[in-house]
């Protein structure tokens, strides 16, 4: 019993050290733990894989509603989904409701485009690419990064009518009116109704909920990539059918990477994540045992 009481007074810096070691050691000496995709992630993968729901060439809107503080959680799933879209010959249009979202989108797009182009021949040989896939993908034709726009719900409402008005230029200042990706065969202005799927990588407010708010107007299928903190909140939208799928935190990214058979930072993070969870669970158990032991000691003293 005394050992538990001593543990209760353990300096919190020892806890920090143990948690740090539980992350560093599995990163330095990696070993694989199985990653089993959940229904929410599998549904999103299935929807993007479905050629009837999203025929080749379909444009999808990806909103990067996070900043560097949430990058380790959300970028891996964004990269995995972008790679999957490139393999399916879908055209991602990236925007942002968060100020640094455009920068986050740029990093993810560059990584995903490089990953797609560097593995093009191998993937083609294995028959894992859509028939219309090209070895080199071009900005403004196959994908675009529009950057950040202020306004949240009002901004999304504007996108429902006309993409070009809130986004006359992309993030780099190129005129969007001349871009092939926004051209409609019948000459109509490009609007949200031309988008096959909306995905928001959400770190907090102003993410997927702005698109859900406007769902009555755009009527497009929606999915989310969210931080772990938001998983309980967004699960309600999954249950109500407002979201077709969701990747939650780093585990969600690992599940998506497993489904597209491209292990990345999500899969690499699962071993340290599991070990760190075990260490924290042990500390919680020891903390509670120490608390019970202390209560008993006090009761004995009084008795």
């Amino acid at each position: 019993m005394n050992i538990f009481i001593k543990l209760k007074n353990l300096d919190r810096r020892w806890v920090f050290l143990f948690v740090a070691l539980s992350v560093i050691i599995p990163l330095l000496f990696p070993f694989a733990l199985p990653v089993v995709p959940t229904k929410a992630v599998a549904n999103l993968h299935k929807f993007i894989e479905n050629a009837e729901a999203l025929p080749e060439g379909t444009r999808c809107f990806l909103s990067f509603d996070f900043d560097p503080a949430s990058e380790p959680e959300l970028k891996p799933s964004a990269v995995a989904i972008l790679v999957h879209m490139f393999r399916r010959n879908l055209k991602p249009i990236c925007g942002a409701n968060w100020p640094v979202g455009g920068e986050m989108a740029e990093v993810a797009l560059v990584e995903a485009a490089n990953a797609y182009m560097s593995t093009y021949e191998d993937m083609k040989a294995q028959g894992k690419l859509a028939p219309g896939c090209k070895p080199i993908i071009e900005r403004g034709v196959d994908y675009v990064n529009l950057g950040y726009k202020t306004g949240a719900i009002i901004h999304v409402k504007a996108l429902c009518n006309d993409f070009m008005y809130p986004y006359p230029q992309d993030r780099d200042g190129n005129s969007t009116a001349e871009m092939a990706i926004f051209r409609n065969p019948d000459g109509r202005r490009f609007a949200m109704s031309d988008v096959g799927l909306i995905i928001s990588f959400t770190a907090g407010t102003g993410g997927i909920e702005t698109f859900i708010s406007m769902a009555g107007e755009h009527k497009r299928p929606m999915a989310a990539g969210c931080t772990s903190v938001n998983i309980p909140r967004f699960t309600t939208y999954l249950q109500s059918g407002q979201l077709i799928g969701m990747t939650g935190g780093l585990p969600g990214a690992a599940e998506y990477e497993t489904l597209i058979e491209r292990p990345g930072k999500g899969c690499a993070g699962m071993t340290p994540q599991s070990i760190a969870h075990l260490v924290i669970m042990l500390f919680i158990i020891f903390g509670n045992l120490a608390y019970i032991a202390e209560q008993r000691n006090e009761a004995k003293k009084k008795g």
Partner: protein
Amino acid sequence: MTTLLITTWVGALITLCCFTFLIKDNPFYRFAEHLFVGVSAGYYLSTISFHQVLKPNLLAKIWPTYFASGTAAEATPEYILIIPGLLGLLMLFRFSSNLSWVSRFTVAFVMGVSTGIAVVTSAEQYLIPQVKKAIVPLIVSGDYFGSFSNLVLVVGTVSCLFYFFFSTEHRGPVFGNVAKVGIWYLMISFGAAFGATVMGRISLLIGRFNFLLSDWLHLIK
């Protein structure tokens, strides 16, 4: 290559400065904190606000020949946008203690538009779909798990709503017990939220150590 090397070293040193806070508050941590605030404010004002919002959405539309590119440079100027531009400028009156009331016109406009949209969308997209999903049959024939799941959902919804009904004291066999069930549901949801938060924080820590061990020290691939 040199730029990448410098940014990696700066990133690594700033990360270590932040980690020093775990030992105790110190000048290295405060340096990193102040640097972050300053750089964020400058970056947000110049690169983001001006180049991604103000220039393409206001200046390029009022003076296309000067600020727009491509075919947009030949577009007809939209002078109507001077009105929202002026409304935006009114916000600067907040810096004056005597004239700060002028900025209220802009705030009132934004509040009016946002509230108008939010009232409709909140009911349409949040309240109704969630209530609709909570109206489920308690017995699903041949599906025991489905029946149990629906029962948990309905009992949880009703008891939690009961708990937040403060006009009646939570006492007695009905009010007291149902509110207690509501507390249990809330506690379980707080536990789930706490677990998810821990998971998120560990993921962020993994991200930082990944950066330090791979990009900076090249110890892992």
